[in-house]
C-alpha cells in the first residue's frame, strides 16, 4: 500500500480557500485517492475520491496531476466548522479495500 505524506497542521481564516497537498510517490496503477474528514470523538467522514485530473462535489475539489504522485484537496471558503483532521489515503485497489491511515492534517480555521 502506498505511503502518503501530508502536512501535520495548517491554519486558515474563515472565508478563505484551503488547499491541502498530499504526496504519494508509490501509488499503484489501480489505486484511488480518497480524502476523509474527522472531528474529535467521531468516525472519519468520506469527503471525496478521485483517480486522475479533477473531481468536484458539493463540499470540495480534488486535483490530481498526470503523474498521480500527489493530490490536492481544495476546500472553498472554509468556516469554523471545517476545523478538523483531514486524511489522505491511497489504495483500496485490492478486493479487500484495505486502506492505511497516516497522521492526517489538522486544519484550524480562525475567525
Amino acid at each position: 500500500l502506498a505511503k502518503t505524506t501530508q502536512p501535520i497542521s495548517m491554519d486558515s481564516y474563515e472565508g478563505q480557500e484551503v488547499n491541502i497537498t498530499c504526496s504519494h510517490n508509490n501509488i499503484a496503477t489501480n489505486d484511488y485517492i480518497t480524502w476523509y474528514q474527522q472531528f474529535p470523538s467521531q468516525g472519519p467522514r468520506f469527503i471525496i475520491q478521485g483517480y486522475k485530473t479533477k473531481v468536484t462535489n458539493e463540499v470540495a475539489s480534488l486535483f490530481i496531476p498526470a503523474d498521480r504522485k500527489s493530490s490536492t484537496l481544495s476546500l472553498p471558503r472554509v468556516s469554523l466548522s471545517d476545523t478538523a483532521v483531514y486524511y489522505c489515503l491511497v489504495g483500496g485497489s485490492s478486493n479487500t479495500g484495505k486502506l492505511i491511515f497516516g497522521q492526517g492534517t489538522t486544519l484550524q480555521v480562525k475567525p
Partner: protein
Amino acid sequence: SQTIHQWPATLVQPVGSPLSLECTVEGTSNPNLYWYRQAAGRGLQLLFYSVGIGQISSEVPQNLSASRPQDRQFILSSKKLLLSDSGFYLCAWSTGYNQPQHFGDGTRLSIL
C-alpha cells in the same frame, strides 16, 4: 440508505476483563467490514478486515480477535484486556474495490 451501528459508545473495563464490541450494517449486502483503533491524537490503525462471513484477516498481532457470524455483523473481542487496549475503536464498511469506507460513531474504551 445504508447505516452502520456501533455499541456501546463508551466503555470502562478493568484490566483482565473480557471485551465484546459489536458493529452492524444495514441497507447493503456482503460488505467489506473493518475494525480500526485510534490512540489519542493519532491516526487510525487497521486491526481486522473481513470480505465475507467467517473470513477474517488480522493486521496487527495482539490479544484482540474479530468474528463475522453474519453477513452484516462484525464483532471485536478479547479474553483479557490490557491497559494498552485503551483507545477509540471504529468499525467501517465498504462495498469493496476502490470504494469509500463509511465509519460508525466509535466506542471509547478505557481500561482501568
